[in-house]
């Protein structure tokens, strides 16, 4: 097989299987990443070496290759990888792969073998993820940004409206944030923003979503949550923020440490999706109105707005 000279130097994995899924060819790239020599695996069932490869999806794909000569394009986004090879790049512990499978035909067009081509896309996937993070997250606090929040709110709103499920919103704002900044400096202000974000995150469930809405204003989407439960969540956040220490320690050039500490409170407004809420802007406006009321009534409190 003179083509081997090419197959063994290309920067991609190449595996050829017969109809019984026995390995017929295993190129050097595969050896390099799996540590298994071509001579050792050829003739064996792929399953014996890689039982994890045999997912429902793989089964369906390889069947469709042999049965109707399909080409299968296996995306990294959906499947991460086919062969688990170690590789450490930023957030990934395994090599991320983009995989193509297809038929190999004999002269009479009958399908006798299938090929699998594996490309390493770990770097691209990591880069992609980083770009995505930058796009949807707030750089300072690490919670979602306003733009992403708005698109998610719209999706959740539509979904809950369609299925008539409860959906609540909490909007909150740090009390007297301007004077915190003025008194303790912007570095401390940033610390407070981060601290409160992480406190709020701890009080939320996995499916809830927290975003920095404006300067010192935050917003949470609580799917499948009625207003009474949302009020309880809001109250827990308020209480935790009120009682937490906000100790911020700095070390200056002469190695002396300074600890700044201040009591910080937040005001919260809660709203819920109901029959008459027709747009997500409406839902947002009601939470904002409630927040405004909380401010006016003396701050450090939770107010809910019944929707009229």
């Amino acid at each position, binding site marked *: 097989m003179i083509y081997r000279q090419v197959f063994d130097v290309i920067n991609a994995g190449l595996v050829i299987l017969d109809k019984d899924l026995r390995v017929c060819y295993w190129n050097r790239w595969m050896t390099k990443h799996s540590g298994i020599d071509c001579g050792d695996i050829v003739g064996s069932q792929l399953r014996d070496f890689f039982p994890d490869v045999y*997912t*429902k*999806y793989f089964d*369906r794909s390889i*069947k*469709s290759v042999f*049965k*109707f*000569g*399909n*080409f*299968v*394009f296996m*995306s990294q*986004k*959906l*499947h991460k990888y086919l062969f688990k090879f170690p590789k450490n790049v930023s957030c990934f512990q395994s090599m991320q792969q983009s995989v*193509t499978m*297809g038929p190999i*035909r004999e002269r009479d*067009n009958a399908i006798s073998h299938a090929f699998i081509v594996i490309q390493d896309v770990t770097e691209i996937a990591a880069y992609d993820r980083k770009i*995505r993070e930058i796009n*949807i997250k707030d750089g300072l606090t690490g919670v979602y940004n306003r733009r*992403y929040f708005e698109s*998610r709110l719209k999706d959740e709103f539509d979904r809950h409206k369609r299925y008539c499920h409860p959906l609540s919103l909490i909007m909150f704002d740090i009390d007297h944030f301007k004077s915190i900044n003025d008194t303790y400096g912007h570095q401390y202000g940033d610390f407070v923003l981060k601290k409160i974000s992480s406190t709020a995150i701890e009080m939320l469930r996995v*499916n809830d*979503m927290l975003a920095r809405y404006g300067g010192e204003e935050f917003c949470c989407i609580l799917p499948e949550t009625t207003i009474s439960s949302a009020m309880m969540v809001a109250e827990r956040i308020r209480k935790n923020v009120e009682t937490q220490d906000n100790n911020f320690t700095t070390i200056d050039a002469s190695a002396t440490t300074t600890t700044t500490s201040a009591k910080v409170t937040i005001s919260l407004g809660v709203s819920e999706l109901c029959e008459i809420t027709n747009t997500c802007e409406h839902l947002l406006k009601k939470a904002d109105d409630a927040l405004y009321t909380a401010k006016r009534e003396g701050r450090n409190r939770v107010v809910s707005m019944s929707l009229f």
Partner: protein
Amino acid sequence: MEINNDYTFSEIEVDTLQELMNIAFGQASADLAEVINVFIVLSVPSIKINKEESLTEFINSEIGDLKGYKIVEQSYWGKSRGVALLAFPHEAELELIAMFREDADTVVDAEMSDELDNEMLIEIGNILIGACVSKLAELLKDLVTFVPPRVISGEQLVEALVENRFESETSRVILLKTVFRINDRELSGHLFLLNNLDSIHTLKDALRAFWKQYE
């Protein structure tokens, strides 16, 4: 079989092509049932040689408003070349995805869900298109390979067709259409196969060869 050599199909040629599509899609349905456990009913296909009227206008008139549609687009290459378009309305798309997601071995990340839905649609489309096109090609003794599919929105269709050089003043296409229903549910979509007119002679030759077997 009467031979008609210009860029039109005779009645009998259209009839044969239609019969072959019927057979091909019937086999594709049976194979899909076996391989992915999905039962698909494909309607009697129709054929149209599209001339003056704009292709997008035609597709629009077939399925109503293209807005809100997702379309899986995949090019195929064999002796005849073309592009397959699989169009679903939004609700059908969601249901289809839910049906396949059950065994996708994947955890869905809300922040990526749109993109993952598209990826899922691409995989489903790849299987459906692959099965239908391969079977038709097989009957016509052709062998096709596929370019990875992509998802476009109904609104992007014109652009995509221009890219494929299907929508220009001189181009005409052979358009094969079928409507399918999945798992006895009210879940239907359209499959269009657009063959570039350069392939018309190849197609005519293949039809003639098919007739020859029975003469």
